[in-house]
């Protein structure tokens, strides 16, 4: 048999098979693709269009304008954006610092206890979000449980004025988002091969060094996932700052809401600000990804 013909025959068969496989994967991913286009891409297109229009009392005038963007560039909204970035960053960092030891502890617990602890982490979700935040208001208020106890113990002479400060916002944000940090961290640490720590110890690394050189780098994906799950929603946070914060430090999420809620409404500026949040997240994500990739490449180079 002619070897070339034989080769051609297989390759054409292979091409057909690949075609069928491609069709299969398209069909399988169709539902989620349609869902994404309908409820993600289209809404964003609408937001982009609205950001380029002129506001009216209730709706918009369909006239092209860049006024919304000019207003943003004028600096009026720099403070709420800065506040939101600071809040998101602090929340992420605190969640990481508080969540990592918890995730580590759960991952290293016995099989039976593990599941109980995971359920305990999830249980707060069963109570309504707003109710949980309101109970924090009561707990932190001037005559709330916390202040009464501290006063009663003579640890403080004046009630601590935490409620309606940026600190109150951060405390509750950390409380709300902590599980989103713990769960991805747990799933990564749980898969970690702990004999690697024995190996590191054996090679001269103290427990501390082994943690920083082995455990931490190997849980990087969990840190990344957890940080995203906390940072992204925290950047646009509305309810927590609204219920725990004060009118002097408004966050970007609150501003967007006011622009739509209060009359005269300003859809274009609200849309433009929403897009700004999106851009912030995209920039931070890409930067993080870029650093991650670069470090990996550099390490390979070093080894050569």
């Amino acid at each position: 048999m002619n070897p070339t013909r034989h080769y051609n025959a297989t390759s054409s068969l292979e091409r057909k098979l690949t075609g069928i496989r491609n069709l299969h994967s398209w069909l399988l991913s169709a539902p989620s693709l349609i869902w994404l286009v309908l409820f993600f891409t289209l809404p964003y297109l609408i937001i982009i269009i609205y950001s380029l229009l002129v506001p009216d009392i209730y709706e918009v005038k369909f006239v092209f304008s860049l006024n919304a963007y000019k207003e943003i560039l004028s600096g009026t909204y720099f403070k709420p954006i800065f506040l939101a970035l600071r809040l998101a960053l602090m929340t992420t960092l605190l969640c990481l610092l508080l969540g990592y030891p918890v995730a580590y502890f759960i991952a290293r617990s016995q099989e039976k206890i593990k599941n109980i602890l995971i359920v305990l982490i999830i249980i707060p979700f069963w109570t309504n979000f707003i109710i949980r935040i309101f109970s924090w208001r009561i707990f932190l208020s001037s005559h709330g449980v916390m202040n009464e106890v501290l006063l009663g113990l003579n640890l403080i002479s004046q009630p601590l004025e935490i409620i309606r400060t940026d600190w109150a916002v951060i405390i509750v944000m950390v409380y709300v988002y902590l599980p989103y940090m713990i769960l991805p961290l747990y799933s990564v640490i749980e898969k970690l091969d702990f004999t690697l720590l024995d190996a590191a110890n054996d090679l001269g690394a103290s427990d501390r060094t082994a943690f920083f050189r082995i455990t931490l780098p190997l849980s990087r994906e969990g840190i990344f996932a957890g940080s995203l799950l906390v940072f992204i929603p925290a950047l646009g946070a509305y309810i927590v700052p609204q219920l725990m914060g004060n009118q002097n430090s408004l966050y970007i999420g609150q501003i967007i809401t006011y622009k739509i809620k209060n009359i005269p409404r300003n859809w274009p500026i609200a849309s433009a600000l929403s897009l700004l949040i999106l851009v912030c997240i995209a920039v931070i994500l890409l930067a993080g990804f870029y650093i991650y990739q670069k470090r990996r490449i550099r390490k390979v180079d070093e080894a050569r």
Partner: protein
Amino acid sequence: MEEIRIEHLTKSFDGFIAVNDVSLVIQPGELFSFLGPSGCGKTTLLRMIAGFETPLTGRILLGNHDITQLPPYKRQVNTIFQNYSLFPHMTVFENVAFALRIRKLPQSEIDSRVREMLQLVKMEDQASKYPNTISGGQKQRVAIARALINKPKVLLLDEPLAALDLKLRQHMLIELMNIHDAVGITFIYVTHDQSEAMSISDRVAVMNHGNIIQSSPADDIYERPNSIFSAYFIGETNLLSAEVTSIEENYVGLKCYSGPGESFEIDSTFHFRPEIGQKLTVSLRPEKIGLSRTKPRNQDDFNIIRGVIEDILYVGTHTQYIVKVGNLKFRVFNQHKRVYFDDAAPDWEEPVWLFWHDTDSWLIDEEAPAGMDAGDLNVFERPIQMSRGMKRSQKQE
């Protein structure tokens, strides 16, 4: 070069005694193996030497230094782990360099020493690969390089070849011996594979239930087992329950029980002085027994008994015969100088003669457990009974 001295080491987990009052000296530069069934305490012993477990009592000395309480990272002892435990987020180079990075050595020194190590294990062209992209044998080499780079005084190997296939295992075994010769430090090797332990080691310690049963060179353990456990665990053997009937200058006369009220007489040389009437166990290796259709000419120093072939297993290098003598089932290995003895294929149920020299049997100063038949060693499937037997034998020593 320093010796390792283990003194009265005991370790228990939740009341289960894993290592029971073990004392031992391992010579500098020795290749020493711990061999035993799973759960015999060999890995626990190794982990105590490495520093991952703290003993309940006893001491471990490296030269003159008591290292019992030192954490693993302060001991000049390195380990090769069962599944290699290479760091997945580091390249081969970085894995090997790890110990030097911890010590913050200058980059130039790290480079040259890592290169040197990778050359030793023939992995210099794989330095930039990640562990999940190399084969099992290559991972093994990286693990060896990583453990040796810190110039430890002792290298511990925890079942290092268990994850490799047979051919690669044999190859790596020779390589390990070469590396041992090249670096000249003490290797302590833990395995449940007796052929590995026997072929690689200067000395082998046979372990069971947390005790060292026997520690001697491989040929000693095989030819001169000190206990029923050693004889049974290493290689294959026929164990006969016997009673001493006469004592001559060079041999003893023995009555071997082959069933209720049945027995046959044999002679055997001895290495300890038994008493008349004493019950003991005879170990007779299957390859030392001859098999014949015609009765061998009567010679004074040969034992000749009659049996019936029950099973024939052809295994290439030799054929295994199961021969029934009374209730006993003798294992006999017949090597293929000729495929079949007397040039004709033996048949099932065929009566044959078994014969062996007086010096081929080995006496064990230990009474055989009740119900033990030659070849039918299911008494050893009951470990509790075995452990009682072991304790009795230890008291006698």
